């Protein structure tokens, strides 16, 4: 675990760059992480996915699968991959300040 300054706020990150404590997160941090991962600007559609991931994680303690992300977030699977080409679930979790999803689906 390392502590880094992102968008002027100190945050604890794991080895892969995921926030250790979701409470340290804010919108500016999300935008900074997105830029670092090749997404220059977070659109409304990105935010929809990021917030859905985050809320679901905070409610249930696990990040949603790509299947339920596609069914329930309001953004279909095809579009998810257009928004987050390097892996929607993983990247939306990273931007949303929650741990890396552990499921296989």
């Amino acid at each position: 675990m390392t502590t880094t300054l992102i968008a002027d706020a100190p945050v604890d990150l794991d080895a892969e760059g995921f926030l250790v404590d979701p409470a340290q997160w804010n919108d500016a941090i999300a935008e900074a992480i997105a830029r670092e991962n090749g997404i220059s600007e977070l659109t409304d559609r990105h935010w929809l996915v990021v917030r859905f991931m985050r809320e679901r994680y905070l409610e249930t303690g696990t990040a949603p699968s790509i299947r339920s992300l596609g069914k329930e977030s309001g953004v279909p699977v095809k579009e998810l991959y257009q928004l987050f080409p390097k892996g929607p679930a993983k990247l939306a979790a990273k931007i949303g300040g929650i741990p890396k999803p552990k499921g296989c689906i």
Partner: protein
Amino acid sequence: MTELLEYPEAPETEPVTIEKVSIVISHGSLEGIYPGLIMANGARMEGIEADLFFTFFGLDAIRKDRFEKIKVATVGNPGLHMPTLVGAIPGFSWLVTKMMQRQMEKIDIPPIPEFIELVADSGARLYACKATVDMFGLTMEDFVPQVEEIISVGEFYEKAAGGQIVFT
């Protein structure tokens, strides 16, 4: 005179990552089809390019008339730990399939038709094996719309170039 060889320092390199996988699905049973689909989906989730090549009975996974009726092989399947004769009882395969599907649904693994749609939507490309297609007398009409092309083994290798090949 003996000379002491110094251990060469390992060069500083970027960690090796897989950029692309080409997965062959060759079995037509539920337990024969799922691993390949799960691996393809998992690859896409990591941002890894994925191709799926369906061959022999694996083609059942993309055949319109069969992909909703995929069953667990209950005969000759030592993994079930049941006598072969029990596995052969009519309706037994149906029952085991239902039980397995229920378990899968619990952990959010979709049924095969939905899974095929999911992997295709996530950007994996689906191909049917030409030799098998010819052997069974099939055409593109027999396949679900997600199938891009019927390709030969040679074309499969061309498409797989530069990536990893996984046979299931």
